[in-house]
């Protein structure tokens, strides 16, 4: 039943829900109904970043019980790709990349918003299990790379230092975000969160996940896909450059040749 809104399959589904409702009244946990303001972000030539609104309602198992403390956490994450983190050292007076560590799976984008700071919403155990928060991200295996590309194991201390650097740099680029008060309750059951998407956001299939916590325990999770795609001219040029690189290069040369020749005609004395 969780996250039913994302699977509108019609009457049969509703009926099944009603049956479940009447048969499980006592055992039922708090539930979520959520949606996104848009399911696709199109990158066109005028794209300078955008925002998505994630909203929903909590269907409390026991609406008369005001003692339960409810929190909502919203996570928007992009596709995971390998990322190499490099560290500079002073070599003969010059700052040069020396050590490097490659992380196998780094989310290209990760934004987490919550009703209260994460440490107060859930215990460390819960956060680790659900992977909630920048400090709980699973980045896959870490491989050290020597100056000449040899692979090595990474010590725990090095992994720690490189992980911190990775998070710090991603935050500086606006691709890792935390909003400790980013989810706002409107009354007792409605909530909304706005997540900013920067202009440099990579393409791909994203996931928007909403966690409902009742007294610090995850009682429901709903998730929805979000597509970030180049479209129009941006898509045409990008696909051309990557699918037919030779033709693209020749086109770039012909275009520049024509432009240079046209300039001599325009400015002819």
């Amino acid at each position, binding site marked *: 039943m969780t996250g039913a809104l994302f699977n509108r399959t019609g009457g049969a589904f509703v009926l099944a829900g009603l049956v479940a409702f009447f048969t499980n009244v006592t055992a039922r946990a708090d539930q979520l109904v959520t949606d996104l303001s848009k399911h696709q972000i199109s*990158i066109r*030539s*005028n*794209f*300078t*970043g955008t925002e998505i609104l994630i909203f929903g309602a909590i269907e409390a198992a026991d609406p008369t019980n005001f003692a339960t403390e409810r929190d909502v956490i919203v996570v928007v994450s992009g596709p995971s*790709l*390998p*990322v*190499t*983190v*490099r*560290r*500079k*050292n*002073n070599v003969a*007076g*010059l*700052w*040069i*990349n020396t050590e490097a560590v*490659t992380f196998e799976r780094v989310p290209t984008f990760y934004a987490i918003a919550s009703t209260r700071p994460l440490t107060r919403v859930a215990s460390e155990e819960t956060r680790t299990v659900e992977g909630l928060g920048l400090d709980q991200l699973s980045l896959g295996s870490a491989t050290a790379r020597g*100056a*000449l*590309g040899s692979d090595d194991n990474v010590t725990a201390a090095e992994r720690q230092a490189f992980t911190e*650097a*990775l998070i*710090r*740099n*991603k935050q*500086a680029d606006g691709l890792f975000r935390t909003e400790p008060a980013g989810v706002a309750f409107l009354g007792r059951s409605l909530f909304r969160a706005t997540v900013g998407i920067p*202009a*440099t956001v*990579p393409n791909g299939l994203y996931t928007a996940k909403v966690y409902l916590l009742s007294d610090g325990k995850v009682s429901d999770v709903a998730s929805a896909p979000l597509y970030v795609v*180049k479209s129009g*001219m*941006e*898509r045409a*040029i*990008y696909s051309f*450059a*990557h699918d037919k*690189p*030779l033709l*693209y*290069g*020749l*086109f*770039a*040369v012909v*275009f*520049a*040749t024509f*432009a*240079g*020749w046209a*300039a*001599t005609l*325009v*400015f002819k004395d």
Partner: protein
Amino acid sequence: MFQIYLPIAEMPVNILLILGMGASVGFLSGMFGVGGGFLMTPLLIFTGIPPAVAVATQANQTIASSISGVVAHWRRSAVDFKMGTMLLIGGALGSFVGVYIFSVMKALGQIDLVISLSYVIFLGIIGSLMLNESVRALIAQRRGNSASSSNQRHHSWIHGLPFKMRFRRSKLYISAIPPIAIGFFVGILVAVMGVGGGFIMVPAMIYLLRMPTNVVIGTSLFQIIFVTALVTVLHSVENQTVDVVLATLLLLGGVVGAQFGAKVGQKMRGEQLRALLGLLVVGVALQLGLGLVLQPDDLYSLTLEITQ
């Protein structure tokens, strides 16, 4: 408002900023008669364009500016096509080597260092030489001495090399090896630095090959067109880093700026122009050199490993 998203660099830039940069560099290149790539590539990198995209796109833009430049020289028949072809043979081989070096260094995470070091070394040397020579000439003029041109055609080791050819327009009978070698070396620099290479090619043609000054610029532009065209194609195939939208903006600003620059340049004296250009070149080298020597704010940097 004036933002445009670049499809290959994958970031938005301000149209007016890029047009302005194109126009300013175009103005200087028109004034000094140089390609301007050595200014534009570092400027693009300072703007936040990834170095690999800046270098490849600048090579593409240089085709347009060199073509609009070579037409005027061609009309005055100030292009030595035979010499240009020899330089080009070397240049083509050099650009293959250069793009290969570029790919390997990019994979090793050292491409930024290689680009910066190349700029610091070559701009530093050329800029200092230019500054030194022009300041001496200015001082000599102020003292009233006539500038002593020691441009005699004395024989050097270059004249002892085999495969001699006659270059009619340059009035030279020399071995084909030095032009090919110079072209090869400059071809590597075009691929690695995203410059036309005129700032090395022109002095090499005057001082090493001893070509007459009137055919030097036209011939250098002629061969730069083909080498930058080849580099554009090679970078497109090897690295997919040529951004045609960025190149279009740069050349729009560039051609307009160059026209005004050329008018101002005609009103100035040669020594003054060379002294100013020397200052500019040394300035760029110092700026990039500081970036290598000063401790960066964050010692760590990230690279997305693109798996295709």
